[in-house]
């Protein structure tokens, strides 16, 4: 059963060392060329932009999600499950449909532009869609629940008496937050960040639909190498690079969280 998903991955790893044949297949000789090719300013830039966008997605999700998770975790227990359920409900549904919903809102003849024009606030429609901000909105919208849930889990576990102790000892609310709440909920922050960051790198349809074709991310690059350019070896190499990056982040996460559980939190 494990072979079912291990085999394809090994195959990709294998293909990434072959050369591309004239007709889009793979042929000998074995080469590192595909990886060397990736060290091109063009591709490095794509990877860099993908990481930057994923980073901003994660950061915005964290900033929006933290206070929200905190509010839910501190709300009366009888409401809590309902409030939480309301967060999960949208993410049970198709992420493509949620992306489409934003297109309906943002496009030139969309809901927001029409409303603003009718109210006389603007005379020309704003170009809200097909830029990087739109991609960012789409990503944040799709990923937000993945940030809120782990944050909620760790904030809910937080022992309130520690906060009281901190303020009894004279800490100001901000100090308590910075020195007690934040470090103690760090596992939630890290888990949430990981859950948001990794999928953000690969969601090719959000840049496709909301960014026009202007924003090429690593996910789009991989997709195009396989389906359009038919350069499987290079597409495979790009996938391996993406996966290596992912595993790097996961390993870092595991190491840090193990470290944290053992030692005094800083």
């Amino acid at each position, binding site marked *: *059963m*494990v072979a*079912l*998903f*291990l085999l*394809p*991955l090994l*195959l*990709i790893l294998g*293909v990434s060392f072959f050369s591309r044949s004239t007709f889009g297949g793979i042929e000998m000789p074995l080469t590192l060329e595909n990886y060397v090719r990736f060290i091109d300013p063009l591709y490095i830039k794509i990877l860099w932009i993908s990481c930057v966008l994923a980073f901003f997605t994660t950061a915005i999700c964290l900033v929006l999600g933290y206070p*929200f998770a905190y*509010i*839910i975790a501190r709300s009366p227990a009888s409401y809590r499950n309902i*409030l939480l*359920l*309301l*967060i999960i*409900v*949208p993410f*049970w*549904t*198709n*992420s493509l*449909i*949620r992306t*489409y*919903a934003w*297109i*309906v*809102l943002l*496009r030139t*003849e*969309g*809901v927001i*532009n*029409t409303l603003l024009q009718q109210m006389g606030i603007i005379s020309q429609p704003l170009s809200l869609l097909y830029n990087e901000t739109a991609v960012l909105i789409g990503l944040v*919208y799709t990923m*937000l*629940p993945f940030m809120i849930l782990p944050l909620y889990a760790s904030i809910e576990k937080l022992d309130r008496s520690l906060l009281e102790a901190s303020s009894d000892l004279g800490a100001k609310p901000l100090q308590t937050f910075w020195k007690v709440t934040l470090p103690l909920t760090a596992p939630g922050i890290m888990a949430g960040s990981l859950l948001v960051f*990794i*999928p953000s*790198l*690969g969601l*090719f*349809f959000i840049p*496709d*639909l909301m960014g026009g074709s202007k924003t090429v991310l690593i*996910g789009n690059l*991989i*997709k195009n190498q*396989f*389906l359009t350019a038919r350069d*499987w070896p290079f*597409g*495979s190499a790009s*996938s391996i690079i*993406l*996966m290596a990056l*992912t*595993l790097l982040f996961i390993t870092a996460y595991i190491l840090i969280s193990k470290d944290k559980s053992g030692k005094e939190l800083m």
Partner: protein
Amino acid sequence: MRHSLGSKLSVFYASLIYLFLYMPIAILILYSFNQSKLNAVWTGFTFDWYFKLMQNSDVLEAMKTSLIVALISTIAATMIGTLAAVGMYRYHFRGKTALDAMLYLPIVIPEIVMGISMLALFAQLKVPLGYMTLIAAHITFSVPFVVVVVRARLAGFDKSIEEAAMDLGATPWQTFVKVTIPVIAPGILAAAMLAFTLSLDDVIISFFVAGPASATLPLKIFSMVKFGVTPEINALSTLMLVVTLVIVIFAERLRMRKQ
């Protein structure tokens, strides 16, 4: 005084986030009932887009594909996943930890890499893309989720009832069917429903492994959105939202019942 201001701010902030989460979906549903072809000005209530949808043979075909694929892959993934969960719960063997870690691999690696690698595998094996590849891929990504859910249910399982059944003369198979399965049944059902919605909603992996004649509903929506935005897509999306929500809420209630 300060407290009440704080709690008012909290309510306000939480409401804003809920608005952010629900407004796009609400607008999408609302405009599926709008007479105008533009998703902008409200001109009147209509069911037209739903009727149009029902006459669109491409959409009906995609709907059929989605349901067949979801049904078959759910049944297969639930069986495989349940057996794996029970096996891993009951037996200790070499390499269990490694297998355990491997099982979570499809949950953590980027979906696009999964999709690509399966496409590569099918191409190497010369399997033409279509129903078979779609179903195989959906089984693959559903199994780990089934294992996770069934295992959670097994965690509270009292092994002594299985032992009691065996002591009373039941064969291992009878014990499994008559004792183990009924006890973990809610978990299995919840897992099956999760697998079903995962399959029904999957975009990225299906995008790579579906053949030209086997587009699923999400893939159909994807290609429709690329051509332009019409209320028909709103209607289709609304239908998918409703179906997904009904299944998931039902599954959640099953899962919650054990607590």
